[in-house]
């Protein structure tokens, strides 16, 4: 019998290793797996590479993980926020490596890891400093930059509902990186508010089929709150 539902966050995260690459879902306030990030802080793994769209804000969640000195490198598209002071200080003092990636490249590189693509050419960032020294190729009169997959050892994502086979649905814009990160990690751990019986999730409306999910952790429902995001 497949039962991917685990009863506690601690159990779900127990085997995360030092040095792991951890994909963490969320964009702005939506889709941040807060309970799993707090669990990762408690779990203690160090020297992590974190992949997230942002780099934390305020003192909570990802910012707290950074503050605890547990992250070696962050791969993200938009670290700067009105209250990203934890990241800002670590970055400025050279204690945290940053790989800044255009958001579409971030998404496509994560998807490529999940889909078995070895590398791909895309137009984004061509001619800019974010193309760095990457290989460039002209195809049909347009210039492209070669990009490589971003694989995770672990993905921590927030879903709305899940079942014991790992099928997931999301809520509104909290979907964001969840479905692609689920495909790209060896171990995908999803928090859910509702554990459903098999078959209760409409097979036409499953967003992440269970094959991409290793553990489902029910967490008490909480309302998504405003963050410190200002542009």
């Amino acid at each position, binding site marked *: 019998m497949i039962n991917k539902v685990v009863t506690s966050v601690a159990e779900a995260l127990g085997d995360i290793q030092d040095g792991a690459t951890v994909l963490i879902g969320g*964009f702005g306030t939506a*889709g941040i797996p807060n309970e799993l990030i707090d669990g990762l802080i408690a779990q203690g793994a160090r020297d992590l590479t974190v992949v997230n769209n942002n780099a934390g804000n305020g003192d909570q969640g990802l910012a707290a993980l950074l503050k605890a000195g547990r992250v070696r490198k962050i791969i993200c598209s938009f670290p*700067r926020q009105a209250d990203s002071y934890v990241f800002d200080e670590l970055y400025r003092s050279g204690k945290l490596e940053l790989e800044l990636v*255009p*958001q579409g*490249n971030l998404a496509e590189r994560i998807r490529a890891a999940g889909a078995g693509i070895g590398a791909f050419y895309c137009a984004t960032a061509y001619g800019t400093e974010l193309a760095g020294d990457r290989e460039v190729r002209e195809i049909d009169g347009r210039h492209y930059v070669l990009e490589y997959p971003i694989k995770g050892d672990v993905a921590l994502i927030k879903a709305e509902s899940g079942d014991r086979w790992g099928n997931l649905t999301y809520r509104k*814009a*909290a979907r964001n990186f969840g479905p692609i990160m689920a495909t790209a990690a060896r171990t995908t751990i999803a928090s859910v508010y509702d554990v459903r019986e098999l078959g209760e999730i409409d097979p036409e409306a499953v967003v992440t089929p269970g094959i991409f999910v290793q553990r489902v952790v029910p967490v008490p429902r909480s309302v998504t709150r*405003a*963050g410190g995001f200002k542009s």
Partner: protein
Amino acid sequence: MSSGYERRTKQQLAQRVAEDIFDGAYVNLGIGMPTMVANYLRADMDVLLHSENGLLGMGSAPPEGEEDYDLINAGKQPVTLLPGGAYFHHADSFTMMRGGHLDICVLGAFQVSATGDIANWSTGEEGAIPAVGGAMDLAQGARETWVMMNLLTRQGESKLVERCAYPLTGLGCVKRIYTDLATLECSAEGLRLVDMVPGLDRETLETLVGLPIAAARSSVQA
């Protein structure tokens, strides 16, 4: 610096951009000033707003007290979804942006070159925290990239330049520039006037910009 002409206000500029958006267009409005364009879209038209974080058919801000922080735009502000809208994940969202499916994106900019290069993600300042988000994807990916900005910096320097001094967002991808003083097209051949505020003439505009500006294609009054 104003003589016989007045600058468009932010609201007038947003309205000017909105005028050029056609019925049925799929549009991404960048963070900041471009967001204001949504307020001036004609109610009798269907303009579908895309947000990079997985929304199509984005509606206006919710009434106070009804914010849902699972339903936000790229600027992380609460929004709503229109009937007929859809949610999708990031790879699908950027497929829309990078695969040429958006008709128009409207971006702010630090500088734009006469040939359509755009610099809008970094001032290149030492020690500044960089952040790029979806700007490069939009600049390269939309069918038409429009820029919306004041023509001059506070110091009076033209943000329309021969060659961008700031780090580039994209090469040769800007089609139109909407500014507080004039609307211009850029292309491999350089700048062409579309319209100006009343009282401004092309020669004065060329002086302000410091670059040649071809006359508008047909007589256009501002």
